């Protein structure tokens, strides 16, 4: 699969690395170039695997290969930026599978009602902690 990931923080790094190890073609965007240092050296040095971009300009999304992407994942640490980029990927670039990280559980529910596949890290983390705490 061709996968474009926006956001190369801890979550983005994990996702990109795992998909790359599975043999998928990955491209990751981040507005800060140093973020890519957390990626495995081999992946980081791969031609075209990383792109310094905040994912706002459409020409940069095109440069990242969004037009040929099978999957777009928005996992930056900003909910609203993720939601905008993910909805653009879905409605403007018609990417078949779009997944968006939204920290705020309430907004996550709203976007999911609107048909956007969303994951709230807050919800998932707290559920796991509760599971570990409760007998």
């Amino acid at each position, binding site marked *: 699969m061709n996968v474009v990931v926006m956001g190369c923080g801890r979550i983005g790094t994990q996702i990109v690395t795992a998909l790359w190890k599975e043999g998928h073609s990955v491209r990751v965007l981040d507005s800060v170039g140093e973020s890519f240092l957390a990626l495995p050296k081999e992946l980081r040095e791969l031609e075209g695997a990383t792109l310094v971009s905040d994912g706002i*300009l459409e020409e940069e999304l095109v440069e990242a290969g969004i037009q040929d992407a099978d999957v777009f994942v928005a996992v930056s640490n900003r909910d609203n*930026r993720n939601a905008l980029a993910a909805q653009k990927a879905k409605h*403007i670039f018609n990417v078949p599978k779009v997944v968006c990280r939204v920290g705020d559980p309430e907004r996550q529910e709203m976007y999911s009602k609107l048909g956007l596949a969303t994951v709230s890290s807050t919800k998932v983390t707290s559920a796991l902690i509760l599971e570990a705490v409760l007998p």
Partner: protein
Amino acid sequence: MYIVVVGGGMVGFHLTRALFNAGHEVFVVDIDGKRVDELISHFGNIAIKGDGSEPSIQTAAGVARADILIATTSTDEDNLAACQLAKHQFNVPKTVTLINNPEDENLFDILGIDVIVSSTQLLLAAIEEELPAHSPAHVLPVRGNREAAAIEIPINSGVAGKKLSAIQLPPETNIVAIVSRDGTLKPITDDTFLEAHDEVVAVTVADQAEALLEVLSREG
């Protein structure tokens, strides 16, 4: 009406003043405490500090009973999130937003934001208006990738003195008004004559504006 404004910067501030003076009930949300203090010192207790795309803040601002929410921050993603939350979580009947990146207009339209004001497009339209010849004056973007253009018939134009029915307009183009030189509105019928200096207001698809200009100004 009850209007909630998200973003109390320059646009938000003056918008608030105008709406306030027009007798509306206005409430402003801004992330910056200094701006909130300034708004309160001008207009009374009508502003809170917070993220306008946060459900708890919209609840506190009374968005649930708002007739209109207007997003005026400098970041499109925050404006979109505020509008979508207001629309889908709080059922606000009308959402209005400023956009900074003109590329976002199409998406915001698809997502059902009611009124989208593109500052870049407005500036471009204003500049185009100043350009001499061969640029449709007063171009205003309209939804569906359409434009409203106002074009003055030049004195040497081939359409001056012709009936509307004799003019071949570009596809998907409707003339919506003809204003004569003295400012009176002409009726729009097949038998209406166009004259030099008439201003023709038409709605056309964006890439046909040039063709329309050509039709109306080509020398006869």
